[in-house]
């Protein structure tokens, strides 16, 4: 059990959101993630999305990516520690931000996995996804490789990972995912 005060981390996440003053904040959740909470969040997102002027295809894309992000946090984040999630929207773009605590060893794996996706074309990402679908396993110590591939191909690579060391063992892991609105 990690024994430290995380108020700095939550403040840090809030400051990131403050940088997007031109965006509307549509969701901000901070707390534990389990499947029941995930269902509630997703239900809330789904209901509020139908009132927004985005196409159903965009709504579904955001929903799909959100599912992958929060299921990844649920499966691979450190239990008993709050995580954070937000959706920011403007006319041309939707941004998903998530923050959770991971271990240093997971950071290295994530950096390595993400680097393998850099510069890949849609066709290459699709081939990678198919290969992982057939050969891969869902669980992975550092996160889930197939989820990273899936997010990359659904966002044309607009998936950014940031890491901030809390100490030698624990890392704040921030994901920023941008979805352009056609």
């Amino acid at each position, binding site marked *: 059990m990690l024994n430290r005060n995380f108020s700095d981390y939550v403040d840090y996440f809030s400051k990131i959101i403050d940088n997007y003053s031109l965006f509307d904040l549509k969701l901000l959740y901070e707390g534990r993630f389990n*499947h029941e909470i995930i*269902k509630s969040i*997703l*239900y809330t997102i789904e209901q509020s999305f139908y009132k927004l002027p985005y*196409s*159903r*295809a965009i709504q*579904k*894309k955001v*929903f*799909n990516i959100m*599912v*992958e992000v929060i*299921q990844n946090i649920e499966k691979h984040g450190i239990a008993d520690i709050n995580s954070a999630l937000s959706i920011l929207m403007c006319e041309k773009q939707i941004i998903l931000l998530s923050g959770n605590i991971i271990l240093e060893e997971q950071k290295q794996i994530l950096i390595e996995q993400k680097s393998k996706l850099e510069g890949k074309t849609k066709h290459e990402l*699709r081939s990678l*996804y*198919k290969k992982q*679908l*057939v050969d891969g396993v*869902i669980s992975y110590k550092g996160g*889930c490789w*197939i*989820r990273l591939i*899936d997010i990359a*191909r*659904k966002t044309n690579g607009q998936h950014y990972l940031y890491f901030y060391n809390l100490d030698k063992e624990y890392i704040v892991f921030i994901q920023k995912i941008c979805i352009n609105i056609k």
Partner: protein
Amino acid sequence: MKPLIIEPRIDSPKVILDKEKNIFEIKGKSLPENVNVFYQPIIDWFTEYFKNPNIETIITLQLDYLNTASSKAILSLFLVFEDAYKKGAKLKVRWYYEEDDEDMRDIGEEYADIIQIPIEIIEIKEQ
């Protein structure tokens, strides 16, 4: 053979597998907490069904959302279909996606690339 009917939930699709009525449908969202618990009975049902299938089997898959864990489970289901097809069962999968939903279309096309059975990718036009 007893039908398998599963009502839809916020995280799992509606399932109707009815040999007598020749209806084989999975429709809705698929992001269950435990994909194996959800999909194994479906895989088991089809495995049993294809021991003595109907003259023709048309399977409808119309999924609004599909998380990556579900996509692996559905691949396992497709492998059951492929095995039956290779053994002579006359079957076809109809993969429906909503207009402009290129993500769901892509997933259907990827299954069609991987699995050697007839798969129709069908766009549902917005009314």
